[in-house]
């Protein structure tokens, strides 16, 4: 339909912009593989793959990555459960007082962490919950409720009404209906929620920086500390960065469609 010149122009523009995005990451990757501490790029044959092992060991990433993984997995599981319950309640069952309650939930998507972090920290400190993993999981879960409820509510409302009616005829109670019919039918939305929630939790820096120290450091905070110590060893710093970015990047490679559509849909609603 479009002419050849137009097609060529399209590709030239796209390629140029894509290179703008890729160049910084590519050069970061090359310095992670450089045997030279300045991170000077070298040929394929001289790649120092050992940098990753060295960085892993020196920064004690095994502990930090494990902490991040535990937090992310528990938060994702909790987020899905809370999203299912809340979304099902607001989207299918109806909730007493939902005319007031639902806008309050939506408001939560616009409340930035900065508005609550100060009291959150000092209150949690008085309960002995700072620098504990359950404490930070609780915060991630509470802050994730608005998006989870909003997201699952939309998914449940998109399901055909008739499915619920016939299940009701069969005498299924509300909770059995959720478990055996609604949740399985909303699987695509649940998968997107899992991916986004994992990414947000894993990538968090501010909350972890405030709440977790020492042995409870997450991977992102450990990376921040590591790069401060190894200012002159660019190659190790870059290798460490790639290690921390790897889990989300791997998911992004496999589930790119879900990531992009989920983030666009999530953004457009806000």
């Amino acid at each position: 339909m479009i002419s050849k010149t137009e097609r060529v122009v399209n590709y030239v523009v796209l390629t140029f912009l894509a290179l703008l995005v890729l160049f910084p990451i590519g050069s970061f990757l090359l310095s992670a593989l450089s045997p030279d501490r300045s991170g000077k790029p070298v040929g394929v044959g001289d790649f120092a793959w050992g940098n990753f092992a060295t960085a892993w060991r020196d920064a004690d990433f095994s502990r930090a990555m494990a902490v991040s993984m535990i937090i992310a997995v528990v938060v994702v599981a909790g987020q899905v459960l809370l999203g299912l319950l809340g979304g099902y309640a607001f989207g299918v069952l109806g909730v007493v007082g939902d005319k007031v309650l639902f806008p309050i939930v939506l408001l939560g998507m616009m409340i930035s962490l900065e508005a609550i972090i100060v009291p959150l920290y000092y209150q949690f400190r008085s309960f002995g919950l700072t620098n504990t993993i359950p404490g930070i999981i609780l915060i991630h879960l509470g802050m994730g409720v608005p998006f989870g409820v909003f997201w699952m509510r939309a998914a449940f409302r998109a399901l055909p009404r008739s499915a619920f009616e016939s299940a009701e005829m069969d005498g299924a109670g509300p909770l059995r209906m959720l478990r055996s019919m609604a949740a399985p039918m909303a699987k695509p939305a649940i998968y997107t929620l899992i991916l986004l929630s994992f990414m947000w939790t894993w990538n968090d820096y501010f909350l972890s920086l405030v709440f977790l120290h020492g042995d409870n450091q997450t991977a992102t905070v450990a990376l921040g500390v590591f790069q401060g110590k190894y200012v002159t060893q660019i190659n190790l710093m870059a290798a460490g960065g790639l290690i921390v970015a790897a889990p989300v990047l791997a998911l992004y490679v496999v589930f790119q469609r879900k990531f992009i559509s989920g983030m666009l849909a999530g953004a457009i609603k806000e």
Partner: protein
Amino acid sequence: MSTSATKTVVRRRSLRRRTRWVGLGCAALPLGMYALVVLVPLAQSFQYSFFKWDGVTASTWVGFDNYVSFVTDPVLRSTFGHVLVLIGFFALLPIALGLLSAALLTRAKQPGMAVFRWIFFLPQVMTTVVIALVFKRIYAPDGPLNQALRAVGLDSFAKTWLGDFTWALPALGLIGTWVTFGFCMVLFISGTSAIAPELYEAARMDGAGPVREFFAVTLPGLRGQMAVALTLTITAALRTFDLVWITTHGGPGTSTLTPAVALYKAAFQNPQVGLAAAIGVVMAAMCLVIAVVITRISERD
């Protein structure tokens, strides 16, 4: 017959009412968590912001003093000036780039688009800490940027970008541009493909060139996407923390201090907890106002 029908209706209705109570039961857990972690601390933030407290000893009521310091404290005031600069880089520049690319690209589907979209979205999924490291290296004294400048004979322009009083803030801003422009592009490109082709045909019939076509059809058609992009990027500029904390800690001096960094320092480094809470309240209010104003404008005819 009719009485039994009425009975069914009544039973249905009471069933509905009952499910709404079941619904509240289902929603109780998520609502409770949300209230505990978000709503209660939000209210406490307001309360804290009227006190002077070092986090340890007893606090004293100071009224609006903490809010007054947004005007009287030049350092705190300057953080909002920095945000304005960052908005230029985080919001205006990426949106301009996104619009330009949406205008240059024809709206026909062509192979390979998925790959490009994957690339443009890449910065969105990377943690900011890693992005900060990527650019810390690029801006380093003997990093790629300075090497490139020296290679083309512009040695005098080479500098420690993130350690320079004048250049550190724009250098940080450009990182924001890099992060957000791909997102804006994907948003706008998918937006243009949703504009009815008849509008373009009509414009062409009226003899509109590509430029007029862009202003008459594309730009109005992207109004919703523009609102989304503006809201997200402006709030991102206002809330910048990770990037600054990893690269400059707000320095040199206070030349890259943002409200979020000022909040962190006031809350946890040399505690002026009340002031920190006030910064948080002001930031949240600004985010809310920005979102509401932009939505209003975009929905107005």
